[in-house]
C-alpha cells in the first residue's frame, strides 16, 4: 500500500475500519458539510461517507494542518529532547515521519510488521476500527532545539532562524513553565478526539529515550475557520471567533502572511515554505464573564453576539466601520474594543491565520472552570505579525480583565515532506 500523495488515497488502501472487516456503514451519519474542497476516502467505491473518513495528504510543499480546514479536535504536545545525539534525533524524526504517513492515512503504526505474541503491539490499538478522521500531524521546532543554556547540542546553532526566539513577556502574562516552550511540538488535529490522542500517544511512545513529553493540551470546538466553506465557531466567551481569519482560499494573503519565503532569512533557507507556530494557552475567567451584561460583553468585543456582526452594522462578514458614531458622537465600536485592536487596520494590515481550540481541563482548586482558548496562529514573521498585536492587546484590550495567558510557545514549522523517502525537518538536517 502506498501513502496517498494526492488528495485521495490509493485504490485498495485499507482503512483501520476496513481492516477489521466492518463495512463503512457506521460512518454514514455525519454529512460532509462544513469541510469543503478536500477529498475524502474511497469515493465511488463506498456509499457516501462521513467526515470521519476524511483523509488529508501527508506529503506536499507545506505541512498539512495549517491551511487544512480546521478539524474539530486537537491534541497538542511539546517535547524536550533528552539525548545529545544528532543521529538519534534524526532517527526519531524519520520514525515519526513513517508513523505519521501511516496514521494520517488511517492505518496503524507498524501495521505491516508481524510481531511475536510475546512482544507488546507496535500500535497502541485505541484507533483500530476508526478511520483517519481527517487527522493531520504538524511538527515544529522550538528555539531550544537550536541552542539550550548556551549549548549547541545538535550542531544547529548556525541555522537558527533570527525570528525563532522565546516570545517576550507580555503585560499580564502568568505563564506556567510546565505549559510553555519545548524543543519540538506536534499539533494533531482530527474530527475524532480518539484519533488525535492515539496519534500523539504513539508518537510519544516512539520517542521514549530520545524525547520526553514536556506538556500537552487537548482542545475541542475549533474556534477558527480556515476555509470559506466552514462556519465560524464560537469561543467560550460565547462569541464567534475568527470571523476575519485568513482562509486557505485567500492564496495571495496566505502567501504573504503564513509561508516563510526562501529569502526571508539567510540563515534559515531551510524554513522556506514553512511557517512559525504561535501557541498561547489563554485562560478565561468564565464565571465573572458570565455575570457581565450583554451590553458590556458586546462593547468589549465590538461585535454583536447573535450573529457576529460588527457593532457598526451589517452581518458577520461586513467590514467593521470604525468611524460610525452614535449619540453624543461616540463611535459604535468603542475605541478599545477587541475587534478594533486586533483589526488589520490597527496592525499595519497584518492578517492572521488562526487555528485555535477551546479547552477545559476540568476545574481548578477553587472549583472554577479551568477553561479558555488554546490560541494557535501560523505566521510568516512573528515579530511583525504577532508580537506587536499581542503587545497591544495585552496592554490595552479591556477584555484582558477576563483573560490570563498561562502557556506559551513559538515553534518553527518546517516545510512539508516532499517524497516517500523524505522526513520531517530534512531541509534542516541535511
Amino acid at each position: 500500500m502506498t501513502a496517498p500523495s494526492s488528495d485521495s488515497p490509493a485504490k485498495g488502501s485499507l482503512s483501520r475500519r476496513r481492516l477489521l472487516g466492518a463495512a463503512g456503514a457506521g460512518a454514514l451519519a455525519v454529512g460532509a458539510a462544513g469541510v469543503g474542497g478536500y477529498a475524502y476516502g474511497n469515493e465511488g467505491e463506498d456509499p457516501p461517507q462521513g467526515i470521519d473518513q476524511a483523509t488529508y495528504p501527508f506529503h506536499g510543499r507545506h505541512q498539512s494542518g495549517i491551511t487544512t480546514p480546521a478539524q474539530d479536535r486537537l491534541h497538542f504536545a511539546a517535547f524536550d529532547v533528552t539525548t545529545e545525539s544528532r543521529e538519534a534525533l534524526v532517527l526519531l524524526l524519520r520514525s515519526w515521519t513513517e508513523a505519521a504517513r501511516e496514521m494520517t492515512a488511517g492505518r496503524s503504526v507498524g501495521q505491516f510488521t508481524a510481531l511475536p505474541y510475546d512482544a507488546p503491539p507496535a500500535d497502541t490499538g485505541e484507533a483500530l476500527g476508526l478511520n483517519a478522521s481527517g487527522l493531520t500531524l504538524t511538527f515544529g521546532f522550538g528555539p531550544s532545539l537550536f541552542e539550550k543554556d548556551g549549548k549547541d547540542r545538535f550542531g544547529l546553532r548556525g541555522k537558527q532562524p533570527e525570528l525563532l526566539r522565546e516570545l517576550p513577556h507580555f503585560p499580564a502574562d502568568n505563564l506556567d513553565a510546565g505549559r510553555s516552550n519545548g524543543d519540538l511540538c506536534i499539533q494533531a488535529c482530527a474530527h475524532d478526539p480518539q484519533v488525535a490522542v492515539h496519534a500523539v500517544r504513539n508518537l510519544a511512545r516512539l520517542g521514549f529515550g530520545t524525547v520526553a513529553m514536556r506538556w500537552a493540551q487537548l482542545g475541542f470546538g475549533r474556534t477558527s475557520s480556515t476555509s470559506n466553506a466552514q462556519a465560524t465557531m464560537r469561543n467560550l466567551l460565547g462569541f464567534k471567533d475568527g470571523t476575519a481569519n485568513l482562509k486557505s482560499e485567500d492564496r495571495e494573503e496566505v502567501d504573504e502572511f503564513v509561508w516563510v519565503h526562501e529569502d526571508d532569512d539567510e540563515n534559515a533557507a531551510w524554513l522556506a515554505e514553512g511557517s512559525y507556530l504561535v501557541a498561547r494557552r489563554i485562560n478565561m475567567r468564565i464565571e465573572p464573564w458570565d455575570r457581565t451584561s450583554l451590553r458590556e460583553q458586546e462593547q468589549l468585543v465590538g461585535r454583536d453576539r447573535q450573529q457576529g456582526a460588527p457593532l457598526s452594522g451589517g452581518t458577520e462578514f461586513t467590514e467593521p466601520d470604525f468611524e460610525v458614531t452614535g449619540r453624543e458622537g461616540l463611535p459604535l465600536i468603542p475605541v478599545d474594543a477587541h475587534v478594533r485592536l486586533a483589526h488589520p487596520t490597527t496592525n499595519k494590515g497584518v492578517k492572521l491565520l488562526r487555528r485555535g481550540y477551546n479547552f477545559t481541563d476540568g476545574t481548578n482548586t477553587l472549583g472554577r472552570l479551568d477553561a479558555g482558548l488554546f490560541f494557535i496562529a501560523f505566521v510568516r514573521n512573528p515579530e511583525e505579525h504577532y508580537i506587536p498585536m499581542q503587545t497591544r492587546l495585552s496592554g490595552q484590550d479591556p477584555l484582558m480583565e477576563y483573560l490570563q495567558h498561562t502557556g506559551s510557545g513559538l515553534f518553527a514549522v518546517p516545510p512539508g515532506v516532499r517524497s516517500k523517502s523524505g522526513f520531517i525537518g530534512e531541509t534542516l538536517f541535511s
Partner: protein
Amino acid sequence: MNRLITAACTVFLLGIASACSVTESNEPTAEGGSGAIRVESSADECALTAAEAPSGNVAFKVKNTGSEVTEFYLYAEDGLRIVGEIENVGPGLSRDLVVRAAPGTYVTSCRPGMTGKGIRSEFKVTDSGKDAKITGVDQATIDTATSQYAAYVKDQASQLVDQTMAFTAAYKDGQDDEARKLFPLARGYWERIETVAESFGDLDPKMDLREADLEEGQEWTGWHRIEKDLWPPASGYKQLSPAERATYADDLLSNTNILDERVQTLEYTVDQIGNGSKGLLDEVAAGKITGEEDIWSHTDLYDFQANVDGARVAYEGLKPLLEVKDAALSTQIESAFDALQVLLDKYKVGEEDFVFYDKVTEPQRKELSDAVNALAEPLSKMTGAITL
C-alpha cells in the same frame, strides 16, 4: 489461495513492506500485521497460503476456523524440535507466530483439540541471501541463562532472610535508629526479586501491602506496617507496644523464611525472566517514581535502585541470547540502563544510601521518570525478541 501474498513481503520491515502489500486484496483481515502467511486451522485441515518463505523473520497468522481450541507448531525437519509455537487459540480467534528461520526444510502442524500429532505438512525456507548469519541459540546457552537466574534469586532470598533477621531483631529490641537504617537495605533484597516474590499470591499481601492497599477489615502486616511504626505520623498515631512489635516482626520473618524455602525449587523460562525484568521497571514506574511505595520512610530510591538492579541482572543473563536475536536492541537496553544509573547515582549518599524521596523535586522526579520510560520501552521488546 486467492489471498496469497507474495512471500517476499513477509520478511521486510515496516516501510519497505508497504510496497509489498499492494497485492493484498480487500478481504477483511484481523487487526495486526498483514504480510503474513495465513494459516487456517479447522477440524480437519491446516491450510497455509504459502508452502515456502524466504529466510529471515517468517510470520504466520493463524486463524482457528474450527470449533475446538487449536495450536500451531513449526518444527525442524525432524518433526520433533520445536522452532516456534502458539498455543491456546480459541475458536474464531487469530494469532501471529513470528519465527526467525534459516534456510531449510521445516514441518508445520495444526493441532485442533490440542491432541495427537497434528495435521502436518512440509514447509520450505529458501535462502533470501539476507540474514545469512541466522543462528539459533543453543540449549546450553538457554540453560546457563535460566540456571544463573535461579541461583541469583536463591542468593537474594537467602540474604533477605539474614537482613530481615537483623532488622526485626533491632526493631523488637527497640533500637529504632538501627532499625531505620536497616529497613531500606533489607528491603533491597526483596525489591531485586520483587516480581518473583509477588508471584506468590498468598505471601505478597502479608509482606508488602501498603496501608492504602488495604481492604475493609483486612489486617495490615509486613514491611510497611513496621515502616509506619518507625516513621510515625506527627499526630493521631499510637505507637505499637513491644508485644505488638514482636508479633509483626516475627510474622514478617516467618513469611520471609517461607519465601526463601519456596524459591529453592523454582525454575524459570527465558520469557519469565524477560517479563520479570520488564515487570521490575513497571514497579518503578508505578510505585517508586510517585513516592507511594515508602510513604512514611521516603526510602523509595533504595527500592528504585533495587528494582533496577534486579532488572539488570535479568537482562545481563539473557544478553547472550538477545545478542544473537537482536543485537541493536541489546545495545539500546544496555545504554538506557547506563543512563538511568548515572541519574540514580546523583542521589546516592555514601556507598549504599540514598537521598530521601521527599527531598527529590518534581522536575527531578520527571527526569527519573523519563529515564525509566527510555529504558522500559526497549526492555519491553526483549522477551518478544528472544522468543523469536
